[in-house]
């Protein structure tokens, strides 16, 4: 056997050393766990796909009725209101499902955690990847909606992958943080639906963020952009809808910096609690 034999030392507080290398070594487990979740979901129910389609669609209809018809809010640069809402619903749904499925992932895989070693970061990461698949399914609705409205995308559509990346970034940090909290404190799960619910209304999903900027001014808008999803959603709208509304760079930069900060915090906190996961699940 030519495999080089290296020495592994296990002692209290020593797991750090090989962590990132192990994470790379176990990358296939990430695909496989994500694949398992997707395969199981779509095997068990035909509703699986329908659910990924129906949920954002239904929410969009409600939002359009409330914000456009009842509250008479303006759309971004003349795009159909439904389209504007849906362009925001995509990243928001992704964020919400990522956070809530990641938060349940450790408990849901307790049998693995207590019986096999692998870098635990893989479990919530797989949950986020699974949510990404739902995102792509929902993206198909967007394409259909655009066809329906006869709304042609501009060159900016090509920048969308960058914003998808940003959304992934923005979701993973808080996702990890909440996953770790939820594993450590079993009553934290009651808080999660509240966070997701609350986030939906503080983020500019049902309305344009321009409304906020016009009413409260640039300084307050920057404060509003502390919510990383503001930058992500604006980016999505900018890329998908085209139109005259410019991309608000400071807000986008803030979103990026905060997402990175959240990610660092999430990874640190997760790593700190992770060691005891096998003892608490």
């Amino acid at each position, binding site marked *: 056997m030519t*495999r080089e*034999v*290296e*020495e*592994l*030392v*296990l*002692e*209290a*507080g*020593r*797991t750090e050393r090989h962590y990132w290398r192990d994470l790379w070594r*176990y990358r*296939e*487990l990430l695909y*496989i*766990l994500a694949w*398992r979740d997707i*395969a*199981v979901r779509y*095997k*068990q129910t035909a509703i699986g796909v329908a659910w990924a389609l129906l949920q954002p669609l239904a929410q969009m209809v409600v939002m359009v009725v409330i914000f456009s018809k009842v509250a008479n809010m303006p759309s971004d640069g003349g795009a159909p209101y439904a389209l504007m809402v849906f362009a925001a619903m995509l990243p928001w749904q992704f964020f919400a499902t990522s956070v809530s499925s990641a938060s349940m992932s450790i408990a849901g*895989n307790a*049998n*693995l*955690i*207590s*019986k*096999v*070693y*692998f870098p635990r970061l893989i479990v919530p990461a797989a949950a986020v990847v699974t949510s990404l698949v739902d995102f792509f399914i929902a993206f198909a609705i967007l394409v259909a909606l655009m066809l329906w409205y006869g709304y042609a995308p501009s060159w900016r559509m090509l920048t969308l992958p960058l914003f998808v990346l940003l959304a992934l970034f923005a979701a993973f940090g808080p996702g990890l943080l909440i996953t770790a*909290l939820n594993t*450590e*404190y*079993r*009553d*934290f799960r009651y808080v999660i639906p509240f966070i997701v619910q609350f986030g939906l209304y503080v983020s500019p999903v049902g309305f344009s963020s321009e409304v906020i900027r016009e009413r409260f001014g640039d300084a307050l808008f920057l404060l509003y952009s502390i919510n990383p999803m503001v930058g992500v959603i604006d980016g999505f709208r900018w890329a998908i809808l085209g139109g005259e509304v410019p991309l608000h760079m400071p807000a986008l930069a803030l979103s990026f910096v905060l997402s990175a900060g959240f990610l660092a915090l999430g990874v640190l906190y997760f790593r700190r609690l992770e*060691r005891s996961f*096998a*003892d*608490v699940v």
Partner: protein
Amino acid sequence: MADTVIRVEGLGKRYRLRHQRQDGYIALRDVLADKARALGRRLLGRGSAVPEDEEEFWALRDVSFELKRGEVLGIIGRNGAGKSTLLKILSRITEPTEGRVRIRGRVASLLEVGTGFHPELTGRENIFLNGAILGMTRVEIRRKFDEIAAFAEVDRFLDTPVKRYSSGMYVRLAFAVAAHLEPEILVVDEVLAVGDTEFQKKCLGKMKEVSSSEGRTVLFVSHNLAAVRNICRLCILLDKGRVVLLGPVDDAVAAYSKLTASSGRIRPVRADMPTITSVVVNEQLASAGQLSIGISFESPTVLHPLIVGVVVYSELGSAVFGFNTAQDAKSIQWSAKKGIATLRIADPPLLSGTYRIAAFLGDKMQNYDVIEDAAWLTFISPVTLPMGVDANYIGYTRVSGEWTIDIPAAEHR
């Protein structure tokens, strides 16, 4: 020296037991409340004494040993002796609290058969899933796929969801995946408790082969002493987290038998009342599907007729069955002042699980001594339940029966 693959030095693992919280989980609500209370106390200047509701418990302490390449180490001990904790540390599932382990080579652990198997997925899909969980790459799995399927003898059912597998097939498939890992070190927990005898033999053979001809190191935990004797030369006996004996397997097994013989509780003799002095459950037999319970008693007067009995309760507290000396024609007229009454049941119709034993002592008139929790019993039935079926749901007795079906002709397709 170059041959040493595992060196364990002064290993210890401490758990904190939390009282007061019955479910054992930490609730954020409690943590916040405690913090607020501590803050309030500090503000009021009453010191910062936080109520101590934690108790420390060492699951493992001062464990040291060395293993060389190609050796097979058996690990035996009673329930709660620290065997599983040791394996969990070695397989990196949990961190030690003190001490150090040096390992040279890749470790694969098989602490449970079919970890991560998903009932909805097919056999083929589960081979890939389980392989990845155990640390194999897709390329590796693909290369060994045929071998795995052949070892498991499930070739024909590879595209059937495993929820339709019999428990035997399920176990075979799961073990087959693990057996085809190529780690330098293989860590195996009580996995052979399931599966039929034929397959157990095959698994033991595979483990022997892996160590002797391929030079891999194996750590093997089992209650099945015959199996341990069969494949190990070296053995560790653990008790209450400490190493009692590390040496040739025969010595360890002998010491273990002595240890288990004295399990159960010993109580002081009372001068004025008939007393049960000890209740001993043979754990070794229990893990092989048999029951043997010895009840020692002492009485100031002759008990006539002597009535000694046990009641077996489920983990959740319902009585499963009871049996006393008045129920057996041979013992119905016994009389004695002192002795050991032993109940043997060769094939109790119980499903695998944890049971509580209550014992009582009396005569025709009354019970003199009753011990509600005389002993706990981990019973392993020779018949395994299908996946997802739990004795706590379907009841505790093992029945055998036969199903038939009549399908109306119109339904035939």
